[in-house]
């Protein structure tokens, strides 16, 4: 197919690459958004769901034909579609960057019982002890020792985080790099509630 070059970049082969490294040990790829110039001679409706004969309107055929990779590539966007003004897009993009998208940046930290949330930059810390110490200082509480078997048993508070899949996990279970690439927000639970987690 003539658009094999575009096709390859859409496939995001890196995400499905078989490697021995853990997820997170590489810099995440930035999606490329090449604005399309124009789309001519539009395909008829029956085949419109599949790849276009002329690739210039850059639709990711892979996604349209129903296949899904474990890491869907950023679909090349068509110029001016959906019809949202760039001012609005830019404002909302800034908000989305606040939510961790895999690139470990600012995450919200909530503590049960505190009136408002804080934000920390995960990239500032090199390991769990640094992070936990900061949290203890920030919120004036004790988190205590982590053990693989018992979690944070014996502490008043247990740190948890929401990962990419939306699940709440105990902080400390996975290697640091994996943690910061998947952590979306932090919640420091009261010890009594957290005891359920570690068993």
């Amino acid at each position, binding site marked *: 197919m003539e658009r094999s070059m575009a096709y390859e970049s859409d496939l995001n082969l890196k995400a499905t690459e078989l490697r021995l490294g853990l997820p997170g040990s590489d810099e995440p790829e930035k999606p490329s958004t090449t*604005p399309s*110039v*124009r*789309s*001519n*001679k*539009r395909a*008829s*409706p029956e085949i*419109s*769901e599949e790849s276009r004969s002329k690739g210039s*309107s850059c*639709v*990711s055929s892979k*996604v349209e034909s129903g296949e899904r990779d474990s890491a*869907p590539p950023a*679909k090349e*966007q*068509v*110029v*001016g*579609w*959906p*019809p*949202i*003004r*760039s*001012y*609005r*897009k830019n*404002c*909302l993009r800034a*908000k*989305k960057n606040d939510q961790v998208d895999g690139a470990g940046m600012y995450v919200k930290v909530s503590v049960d019982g*505190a*009136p*408002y*949330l*804080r934000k920390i930059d995960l990239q500032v810390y090199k390991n769990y002890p640094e992070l936990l110490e900061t949290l203890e200082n*920030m*919120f004036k509480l004790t988190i205590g020792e982590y053990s693989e078997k018992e979690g944070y048993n014996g502490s008043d508070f247990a740190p948890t985080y929401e990962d990419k899949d939306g699940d709440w996990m105990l902080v400390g279970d996975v290697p640091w790099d994996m943690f910061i690439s998947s952590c979306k927000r932090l919640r420091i639970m009261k010890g009594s509630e957290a005891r359920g987690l570690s068993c």
Partner: protein
Amino acid sequence: MITNKKPRSSDTDSIYMRDDRTEMSEDDDRSPSPNSITDDSSQTRTYTTGSGPGPGPGSSSVLEYLPPCPDQVLENVLENVLWFLTSRKDRNAASLVCRSWYRVEALTRSDLFIGNCYAVSPKRATSRFTRIRSVTLKGRPRFADFNLMPPNWGAHLAPWVSAMALTYPWLEKVHLKRMSVTDDDLALLAESFSGFKELVLVCCDGFGTSGLAIVASRCRQLKVLDLIESEVSDDDVDWISYFPDTGTCLESLIFDCVECPIDFDALERLVANSPSLKKLRLNRHVSMGQLHRLMVQAPRLTHLGTGSFSPSEDVAQGEQGPDYVSAFAACKSIVCLSGFREIIPDYLPAINPVCANLTSLNFSYANVSAEHLKPIISNCHKLQIFWVLDSICDEGLQAVAATCKELRELRVFPFEAREDIEGPVSEVGLQAVSEGCRKLQSILYFCQRMTNAAVVAMSKNCPDLVVFRLCIMGRHRPDHVTGEPMDEGFGAIVMNCKKLTRLAVSGLLTDRAFAYIGKYGKIVRTLSVAFAGDSDMGLKYVLEGCPRLQKLEIRDSPFGDAALLSGLHHYYNMRFLWMSACNLSNQGCQQIAQALPRLVVEVIKHEDNLDMDENVDTLYMYRSLEGPRDDVPRFVSIL
């Protein structure tokens, strides 16, 4: 109806005619404000020429007093009667009666509305209408907002401001939409009109904070400075501090789109010095603490844009913040709330005291979940206008439907404007809204998936719909339950909604959808089409079937020259036609240009493709009294 007639002077009136009576027309995307200051229809003047009933001998008169002859008497009577004629349609009709009426109408018109700045030249407009107090100008076509047009296409304010500086010394109001405005233009405006009162810039660009500073300092009578969705460059000028220290007559100050930080102390002083201030919309650089201080200074505000709605970064932990709830409770007049640019949802309950009175609420920059929304919206019984992000999900929309029985206008914007994601709102939300909000008149709904059934339900439940804009973000996406095209849904809308004047379609659509529009959409004035239709027949149905069509914008649809030619009988009645990425050729467009000499046919090439090949990237054509404009950039050719 009207067939291939050549334009007469009456066509000039259609250029000044406004389509409807709402301010800025229904495609105005500015944040909602029910008591808009652009209430042009109530403009009247008690200015007399000294020979008719009026405010007595003290009234100033430009004309010398001459003994009236019979014709003059008639004309004077007419003049005094015509002062009270406010509707543009009526005025245009009156001007056609005879020369005398034409002349008198021109003398008594005070509001000038130009829907397309290239349809008439500044010179022609200012020569005919000599006593204008308020000017509304619209420039670029709407699709330019979505990067479908290269920058520097045109719509410059400069020639207008120069002409008006000479002929309208008493100009008070200027409303612009999609125009290019420079700092020099603003300076000329500020210097030329000593009684200048109102400047409203919607979707404009080309100017910066230095231009604003000039307006702030020179326009001593300024009541309204509204910057709405405009791009303002940061010239490092603290424009707020240029307002006079001694006090202003400001009633409305809207600058939520201005991305540059402002000097808060200057703003606080300004608010304290502006006792008439009713509308204040802050930009995102104003924190909650600062908002609180301003609210305490101005408890009589009716419209408030809350800025960032989050505390500034250096709030210490555990410190007791200001009492936001009391501040809102003290502002008993607030009916319109917006802003929330960087909202921390935990602070949202602070607005509870004003919810019961709110008629307009704009959450369209606030990433708020259904859970956060529900306790707030359940108090908003009087809400008429609601703009929101799809982050509230179908569940949030159901909550809106349950409470907001007075809702007239709903806009649901996407938090993520992409095509390949799941999407939090769907036909479920639309159905709920249709069942709960029976008085709905205007809807803009972005979603990833939709069904015909929900659209049909809305067509039946909401008979008052005037504006229906549905954007299914996945191109060519069918009804996701039945797999059918979305033809039946949109067909039901044009069939059942007898008041519909504006329609935007999306999803998988065949020519059948356009057949419905042509058959039933008899009062449709604005139609927006993207990635739709099968063949030329689609466009033909619309051009032959919709006699009131004024504005037609089409992109990426398979309509070719034959379809274009089928509209020859109608193009003089339209404000414009836009077609991009369709199947048009230069030859077809040439035919139009030759057949209709009063039409300006612009072929716009994308900047990286300046060779003249047969395919037309973008066609933009509009009626004009002036012929080809003289400020054409190199990527535009006029046929």
